[in-house]
């Protein structure tokens, strides 16, 4: 009996996902532990291993389609084994994908959602039916002759105004459109025209660079490259969350300069004695200690109520290929420096390898964004939705500074706190920023902590 592969639920908050890549083809042998496919959720991309042994008999879910968790995606069994006519209904939340052979009249598409629509944190979930996509762009009313001409000329008909009944585009409209857009003057190489037709490029919109203004293959390829494409789910999530935060939270910013000279020397001493800590470790610890002192900075408001968090769930922004993830250090206030170091190393490593699970990235109460390694003087970060503030850490640079009444070259690091002004006022923000600064400059404190 063939076994059903499902889209696994990989975290408490995961509701849906898409297969971005099948690692096996239909007919490929599958061993237990083999990676069969790769999925992308709104948080991360993950590889999924098989629990079964046999042959991948059938792929039910093609790449790039977002479906709810537990949806059947394929069958593993023995070659030649008969598959069930209808796929099992493992997922009670939605109809599963139907195999293509039986799909002629089945509305298999109704489990798809447009990739743009994410389950938004802190938003009222809409009923699924409302989110269903319309069948492509709105239907074009165009006569068959007009459509044939549009196709022959490799142009886009959506800009043509129809003069037929109910605004239907007729052949004459297309002809007028071609004339008014100088189509007869257009020169295009035969291969370029074929490529444009294949890629759905409107040749009236292609910039020509060939001899005498002739459109060449290269020009069409450029137009193809410039055509809007769906962003990765990760980027879409980043876009949505940051827009939401930046447009709904009134940000204000407090910057202070931290003199890191002594701490850098102290860190070197520690290193020489075999204890390795990163600069980030010290910053995370200083932030944790300050958050305990200033619970309001560790809180959250929706504009009408405030929740003061009793523990520090410290998010650390990690840049990854084509994006940014924020793994969370749980209950940072009860961790020792060493534990903090170990956990942050593990999380950062998982982030870079794309191995973070969705649960690793939810529930943070404050975030630190460290661009220290990127040679920047200062920057402002955008508050992670669900938090009251974020700390932006810039590079430590040798800078002329007043030290013990004299101008000296000191290792100065600028940090900038972005704060939700609805709940934190200037004085508290300033006090918090200075608290982090004082801690980082207090070597006695670090001697007792390391």
């Amino acid at each position, binding site marked *: 009996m063939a076994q059903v592969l499902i889209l696994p639920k990989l975290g408490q908050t995961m509701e849906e996902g898409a297969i971005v890549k099948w690692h096996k083809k239909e007919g490929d042998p599958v061993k237990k532990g083999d990676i069969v496919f790769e999925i992308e959720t709104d948080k991360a991309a993950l590889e999924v291993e098989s629990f079964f042994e046999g042959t991948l008999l059938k792929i039910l879910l093609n790449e790039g389609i977002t479906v709810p968790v537990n949806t059947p995606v394929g069958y593993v069994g023995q070659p030649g084994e008969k598959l069930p006519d209808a796929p099992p209904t493992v997922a009670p939340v939605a109809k599963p994908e139907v195999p293509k052979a039986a799909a002629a009249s089945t509305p298999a598409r109704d489990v798809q959602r447009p990739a743009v629509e994410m389950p938004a944190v802190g938003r009222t979930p809409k009923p699924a039916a409302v989110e269903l996509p319309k069948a492509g762009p709105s239907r074009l009313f165009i006569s068959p002759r007009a459509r044939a001409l549009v196709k022959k000329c490799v142009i886009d008909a959506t800009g043509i105004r129809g003069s037929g009944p109910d605004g239907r585009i007729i052949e004459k409209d297309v002809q007028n459109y071609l004339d008014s857009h100088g189509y007869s003057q257009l020169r295009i*190489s035969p291969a370029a025209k074929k490529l444009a037709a294949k890629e759905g490029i409107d040749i009236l919109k292609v910039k020509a660079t060939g001899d005498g203004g002739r459109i060449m293959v290269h020009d069409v390829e450029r137009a193809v490259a410039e055509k809007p494409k769906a962003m990765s789910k990760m980027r879409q999530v980043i876009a949505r969350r940051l827009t939401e935060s930046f447009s709904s939270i009134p940000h204000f910013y407090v910057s202070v300069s931290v003199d890191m000279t002594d701490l850098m020397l102290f860190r070197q001493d520690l290193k020489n004695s075999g204890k390795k800590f990163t600069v980030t470790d010290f910053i995370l610890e200083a932030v944790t200690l300050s958050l305990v002192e200033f619970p309001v900075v560790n809180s959250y408001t929706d504009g009408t109520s405030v929740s003061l968090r009793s523990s520090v769930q410290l998010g650390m922004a990690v840049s990854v290929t084509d994006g940014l993830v924020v793994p969370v250090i749980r209950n940072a206030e009860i961790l020792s420096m060493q534990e903090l170091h170990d956990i942050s190393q593990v999380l950062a490593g998982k982030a870079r390898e794309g191995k973070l699970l969705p649960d690793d990235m939810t529930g943070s109460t404050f975030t630190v964004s460290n661009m220290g390694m990127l040679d920047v003087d200062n920057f402002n970060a955008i508050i992670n939705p669900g938090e009251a503030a974020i700390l932006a850490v810039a590079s430590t640079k040798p800078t002329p500074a007043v030290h013990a009444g004299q101008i000296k070259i000191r290792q100065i690091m600028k940090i900038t706190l972005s704060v939700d002004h609805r709940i934190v006022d200037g004085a508290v923000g300033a006090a918090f920023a200075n608290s982090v600064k004082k801690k980082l400059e207090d070597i006695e404190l670090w001697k007792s902590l390391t």
Partner: protein
Amino acid sequence: MEKFDVTVIGGGPGGYPAAIRAAQLGASVALIEKEELGGTCLNWGCIPTKTLIASSELFHRMKHADTLGLSAGKPDFDYAAMSKRKDAVVNKLKAGIGMLMKGNGVKVFNGIGSFVGRNRISVAGKDGREIAVIETSATIIATGSESAMPGFIPKGDCIVESRGFLGLTKLPSSLIVLGGGVIGCEFACMTAQLGSKVTVVEMLEDILITLDADIRRELRTNMEKNLGIRVLTGKPLEKIAAGKGKVSGMFGDEKIEADMMIVAIGRRPVTKGLALEKVGITTNKAGFIPVDEFCRTSVATIYAIGDVNGGIQLAHAATSQGITAAENICSKQRKKAERLVPSCIFTSPEIGSVGLTEQAAREKSLNVKIGKFPFAALGKAMASAEDRGFVKWVVDASTDQLLGAHAVGAHATELISEAATAVRAELTAGEIGRTVHCHPTFSEIWMEAAHAVHGECIHAAPKRK
């Protein structure tokens, strides 16, 4: 001090057309040439070799004239006379370039040009004394290349490079050709046709390695079977020793011996004497002058074209770049150098090639279709008793675009121009297939091969499925 709008250093196939084009566009032009107008191409390269090959090719055909129903007694040749004809052809062409320079008002300086500053060039005569100082708004470096003669090759009368070989008045009875590139293979075929015993040694796994693999196979078979050339590949020739009238080397365990060796293992850019450091131009690791797609060096008013810029080492590429550079200097509209450059090889049989090879297209992960047609199935080729070889189109399967064309066989170097036009114009295989070609001609083969792309050949049996 004399003032010019444009100064061209080097009067080869890149330099002199650049000078003419600049003059046509109204510039005052100086041309500095250290040896002979026409450069390597005209004096020691393309033209003299093709003159000799014309003789050797005809001689080879005469020997097989009986197959055409002819008899001309026992054919023979006089290499000294062949060489004399070669010199006459070269001198006539060279004189022609001199006339063109005069006619276009280009002032020719005989000497070595070296930069004093970005806009000042000193010209030194043969004795090293300065004979002129030129002030120029723009400069085109067209100094070309010379045969590479690495240190491991001993010096001796019986070891020559291409230029030295062309000075011979008597052919060696046996010859080692070191290097199976274009120059090596052309010399190998020519001398073998004239009866010398020829061995080609190429370090890489095949001769003419950048060519399409099918074409290479056809040529190699012909060289080995019909011309009796020994082709050794995949190992270097080691322990090269030059004795009196003998040269030898070790190919693996085997000792290779001959009366003479021609070294054709690549060409080095000529930049010595230019004093590039005075203008802040640095050459790359291999010694070439880097340029952008407009042929400009890192100095905005100095251009470099042809072999010296490390692009395609072909005379016609240099000519095209020279004209482009002159136009970019003299007009406001900048043009990119042509990237599609056909190549021709005067081996026996000839080879013509343009655009992507099948292998290169596949490496680019393009989905390609191939259309091949043999000369043996072409009426004119059979009538002419020149039915060896084939042509091949490389076509993009999704758009039918012609990406490359390769020909091996009689007249392949002429035939390739139609294909070059088609590839540059981004035509499709369908269009070449519908273009009416004269019958009976060799050119028809492109149409037949275009039909073959779609499996619609008229003159070949359909492939069994």
